[in-house]
């Protein structure tokens, strides 16, 4: 019986104006995500080739990943050039672009399309699943046959889900294929595995918003009410909770602004240089260069030690608050899986700090010999999932289960009159 309902739902909507307009929108946004994401990746690879340090040069930069086309996340941060010198670890700013408009709007990558637009489309496909039948009077007709309510609601959920999931999956596969065939997108086995995990998470997220639509539809009696309610929930999950959450997180755990960290490092260095010159003036002929270097090294390490723990605590708080919303959890999960997330950022920073600490003396000629090369591999999928991603996936699954159950239970008590 369920298969009949699914078939009915699909056939009813397949030739509709809605299916045409919504899949058109998806096609448009995914094409744009491919074009801009790939262009961005190519430019980052070009930068990497230019900035890549020669042997013996202590600068640190890691290669961009083609997965950033799927979820850009913090890729810009990760692929910056870290210059390691007596002044500590410095960032060459603005390597990517000089266009300031980037800072006003969010990046239109595939993650944005999934998180915002796919969720909206799933909702628009399902918000009237029950109310429309009721308004037309067909719900009474359906239930007057031997069709059981559980079969009807499950059939509706799956039918509407298939309507959005199939076009999305096809477009996603075409997207992946295009990335892998284009010259800059080097698709390894790891790339495919991660991409398929992303696809699975995206499908679960689509099912969640289909269930949300169905749930509001079985709570109210008019399509217009269910649309407004559905859109309000969409706004809450997609925009309000994640963005307001990060805003609140900033007030909960206070972090020093970047300008303060920069100032403290700079003034410490100037003080060390000044004091060195003063010492040498008092005792001419005696070089205090080594003393100065050690002073700067100590103050730089102290600065990093003082500021990283509160920054990490702030990141953890933000993550926790973000996870209250399924869209926030999706954002964290997808960027982590694509190795462009907060986990990778913290891991790279740890590696750079450790490298700089280990090689400081050689880099600043306090010890003979060239510094060792910086070797870094992005985290394997299993590590990311265990350390961070799994919680987000579980949250999305729990949210989906809650809304599916709510829609199911509510529909059992729905008044079709």
């Amino acid at each position, binding site marked *: 019986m369920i298969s009949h309902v699914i078939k009915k739902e699909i056939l009813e909507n397949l030739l509709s104006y809605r299916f045409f307009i*919504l899949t058109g929108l998806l096609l448009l946004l995914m094409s744009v995500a491919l074009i801009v994401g790939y*262009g961005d990746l190519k430019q980052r690879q070009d930068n990497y080739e230019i900035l890549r340090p020669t042997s013996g040069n202590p600068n640190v930069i890691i290669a961009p990943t083609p997965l950033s086309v799927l979820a850009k996340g913090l890729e810009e941060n990760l692929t910056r050039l870290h210059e390691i010198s007596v002044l500590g670890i410095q960032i060459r700013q603005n390597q990517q672009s000089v*266009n300031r*408009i980037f800072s006003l709007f969010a990046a239109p990558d595939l993650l944005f399309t999934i998180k915002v637009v796919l969720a909206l489309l799933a909702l628009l496909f399902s918000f009237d699943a029950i109310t429309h039948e009721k308004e037309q009077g067909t719900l009474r007709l359906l239930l007057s046959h031997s069709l059981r309510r559980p079969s009807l609601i499950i059939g509706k959920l799956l039918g509407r889900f298939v309507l959005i999931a199939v076009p999305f999956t096809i477009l996603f596969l075409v997207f992946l294929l295009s990335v892998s065939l284009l010259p800059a997108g080097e698709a390894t086995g790891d790339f495919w595995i991660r991409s398929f995990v992303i696809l699975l998470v995206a499908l679960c997220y689509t099912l969640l918003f289909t269930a949300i639509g169905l749930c509001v539809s079985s709570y109210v009696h008019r399509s217009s009410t269910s649309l407004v309610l559905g859109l309000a929930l969409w*706004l809450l999950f997609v925009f309000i909770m994640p963005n307001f959450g990060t805003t609140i997180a900033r*007030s909960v755990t206070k972090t020093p602004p*970047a300008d303060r960290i920069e100032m403290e490092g700079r003034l410490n260095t100037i003080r060390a240089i000044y004091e060195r010159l003063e010492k040498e003036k008092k005792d001419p002929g005696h070089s205090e260069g080594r003393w100065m270097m050690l002073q700067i090294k100590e103050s730089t390490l102290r600065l990093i030690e003082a500021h990283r723990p509160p920054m990490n605590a702030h*990141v953890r708080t933000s993550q926790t608050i973000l996870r209250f919303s399924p869209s926030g959890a999706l954002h964290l999960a997808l960027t982590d899986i694509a190795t462009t997330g907060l986990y990778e950022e913290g891991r790279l920073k740890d590696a750079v700090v450790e490298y700089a600490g280990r090689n400081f003396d050689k880099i600043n000629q306090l010890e003979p010999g060239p510094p060792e090369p910086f070797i870094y591999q992005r985290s394997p999928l299993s590590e990311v999932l265990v350390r961070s991603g799994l919680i987000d996936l579980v949250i999305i699954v729990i949210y989906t289960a809650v809304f599916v159950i709510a829609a199911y239970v509510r529909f059992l008590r729905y008044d079709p009159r």
Partner: protein
Amino acid sequence: MTEFSTRRTLMLRIILKKELHDNFLNLRLISLCAIAIVLIVSSIIVLTGQYRDDLNDTHSRISTQNEFIDRYGHANRIGWMSVLFREPSPWRPFITGIDRDASQENFINNPIPALLSRLDVVSIIAIIMSLIAVIIAHNGVSGERESGMLKLMLSMSVPRSTILLGKFIAGLITLSIPCTLGILLGLAYLSITVGIEFDILTLGVFGFFLFLALLYVQAFYGLGLLISARSHSSNVAVLKSLFAWVVLVLALPNISPFLAAQMYTIPSRARHEHELRKIESEDRDARIRQQMVTAQKEIFPDGSLPEGISRSEIQERMSRDPVFRERYTAFMKRFDAIARQVNIEQRRIGDALREDFNNRSRNQELLAIGLASLSPLSNFVFAATDAADVGLESDAEWEAQAGRYNRSLREYVDKRYEEAKASDPSFSVNDYLDLRARPRFQFQPPPLGTRIVRIILPTAILAGFNLLFFVAAFVSFLRYDVR
């Protein structure tokens, strides 16, 4: 004629009253507006706290740096010591603008702002209020047709233009309530907790912000009415409206900078700097070396200056061979002349490249702004951020004032250094210099006039969108089949 116009005014009032009744008795709408007000006020409360923290931190940084200069001031590193800090804009609780923390210029930075933007009043109005406007409007024509109300109204000989105008004004009044109330409550909170001065600038910026918000939200209301007047059923109208909303609000502004970067390609900053380094250092050295080889052959035709000769050997030969000394002095003079000349020439090439790069970046940015301007959201964001001086134009003014101050500080330090040197010839640039009486920096925010000039274009485009959507809705409605 007078009687006719009085009748029309009366009808307009009746339509307006009906529309307002419809809107205000709609529980869904009221709840959405209430949510918007709560959100606006709570975001202002949270961001005000952050603004206060940032302001205190900026002041503490400025005083730390000042104390440092008082204690360790010397002529050599004065520029490095006195980096200017920008106070957060007093409008930050409303309009974040370009978030400097998101630019990630430091190693130990906070990665969260680069991942997700903050929720300020601008983004609440830009996304949530525009969606509410579209939801209210999509029923305007097609919904009334479905309920039979439209037929009834037209049968009472109410002119179509009056109906549409009534709806347009009612929409403006309905939407202005949550915007105005939310912003006013937030402003009241800000003035109680932080204490803002209600001078002409503040009132002007506030007035403009409110005006822009209403203009923006009304554009989406007009768009919703237009789509409603072009659709036969409200189901189709809502889909079309949401499609248009997604394209205009979620897609177009975000895509524009990336699309501009694809359409008008410029080298990345890293490549540009790489080329500059090649011209001004590698090529320069190669040219100098090449010219010096020629000069060496000319001055030492007998090859008496072999390659790789050490400095001590030269000293030694100069002391015993006067001919060599004369030739070597001429050789060094030639070296100075060649180095100076090549330096000037290579610098000129580098400067041309720099200028070209700056021009092309500016062109790319203009293209991105142009593309983004096709969406009312971008125009609203540009105008609101520029009115509050936290947008694209704000850096230029700051940099100009900071540059002027840095020059005056340099002059002051040079003067103090010369004075110290005059009284003590052994005084060096690394010696302590008392700079306590140095000029201090105070940023003068641009006056209201400058800001108005900046926002004229985006405001005019927003007004243009309003006009376009209203006229198009009007024309579509005149031809609308009410059956």
